[in-house]
């Protein structure tokens, strides 16, 4: 069987129950697959959680306990940025408690008397897996510098959107900075990063306004997947204006390539490749003036003839 990320090491699960018999029985089931920590009440549970933090993969939590009950533990965990990410499965025999605990952030519940060991282990495994996937997504979904999507997630979400909104006309835009590498060379990387963040802010504002999404595709190139607009010169001008607050105008030249929604249908990635081709075709555009190019039949013919040369 192929090893997955789930199998490399034993996770730690915290069992919280004031009844020794219950702790022992649940612990015996979980110890087959996990390292198990125990707490007899809510106070001990929170102390253990604060001591171990995100090393704990999941909490199995009884609700009615002395000292501090399960609801108070749930509430405390939700208030802590680290602990709130740890999934909690509550133990309960009451329907009202199921609803309340789910509303308070519990990931799942286990009934009392306990389900079969196989059911308990499956639900624990599932909750841990979902939590770990969510953590990975959070860590990789956004570009570290600009906080726009990374291209992998951008295309995933754009494709999902396409499936559910086939009638909506969406344009593919590529925006970058003419000769950005020179800017980095002359002004330093930190300055270049500041330019990129400023650009990203403008791109984000536009995408939020038009109902699209945006990513940092690479280095200084941004992709925008947006509802069709009549023109994009004003977008470039607003981005240029944002940048002029941080550096002199002639130093930077923005360019935009567009593959329109009304063009020949092709896969999403290819649409952005074409938008980028159009964008890069403006290499020699007039300095200081924003430039927009549309990928059309003529450009396709040039691209094809260039490839065949």
């Amino acid at each position: 069987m192929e090893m997955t990320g789930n199998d490399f090491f034993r996770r730690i699960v915290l069992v919280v129950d004031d009844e020794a018999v219950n702790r022992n029985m649940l612990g015996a089931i979980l110890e087959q697959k996990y390292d198990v920590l125990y707490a007899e009440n809510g106070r001990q549970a929170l102390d253990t959680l604060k001591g171990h933090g995100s090393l704990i993969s999941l909490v199995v939590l009884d609700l009615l306990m002395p000292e501090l009950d399960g609801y108070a533990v749930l509430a405390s965990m939700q208030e802590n940025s680290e602990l709130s990410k740890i999934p909690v499965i509550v133990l309960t025999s009451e329907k009202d408690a199921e609803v309340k605990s789910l509303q308070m952030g519990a990931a799942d519940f286990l009934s009392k008397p306990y389900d079969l060991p196989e059911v308990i282990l499956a639900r624990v495994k599932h909750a841990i897996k979902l939590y770990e996937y969510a953590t990975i997504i959070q860590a990789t979904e956004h570009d570290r510098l600009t906080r726009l999507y990374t291209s992998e997630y951008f295309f995933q979400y754009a494709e999902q959107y396409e499936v559910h909104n086939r009638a909506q006309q969406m344009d593919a835009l590529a925006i970058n900075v003419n000769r950005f590498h020179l800017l980095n060379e002359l002004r330093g990387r930190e300055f270049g990063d500041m330019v990129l963040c400023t650009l990203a802010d403008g791109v984000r504002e536009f995408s939020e306004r038009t109902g699209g999404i945006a990513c940092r595709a690479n280095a200084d190139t941004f992709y925008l997947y947006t509802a069709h607009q009549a023109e994009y010169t004003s977008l470039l001008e607003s981005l240029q204006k944002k940048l002029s607050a941080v550096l002199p105008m002639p130093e930077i030249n923005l360019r935009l390539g567009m593959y329109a929604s009304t063009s020949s249908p092709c896969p999403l990635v290819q649409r952005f490749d074409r938008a980028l081709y159009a964008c890069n075709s403006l290499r020699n555009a007039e300095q200081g003036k924003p430039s927009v190019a549309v990928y059309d039949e003529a450009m396709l013919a040039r691209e094809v003839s260039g490839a065949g040369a």
Partner: protein
Amino acid sequence: MITIETLKEFGADVNEGLARCLNKEDFYLKMVNMGISDPRFVTLKDVLASKDLDAAFEQAHALKGVLGNLALTPIFEPVSEMTELLRARTDTDYMPLYDKMKAQYDKLVALKE
């Protein structure tokens, strides 16, 4: 001595209890002995007599949970019924239910000798 056989005769749902204990008989019997050592089976009477229904609910609820996990059905059933009445803080005479529970509890404890 409490054994799997005597538990079956007592009326416990042994298969269910064993399943929760990974079908380990020694472990299940250890848990049963631990469970019936709980002093609350006795102290619950005084708590009920004092009419402290909050405390009585807490105790009955805890015992219900353990008895359910151990599948000690003859004791579980009266405790479960009592717990639901106490959950609603019903003003009633709890002694018949307590006595019913205690009789079954005493029967099981007697098997230890």
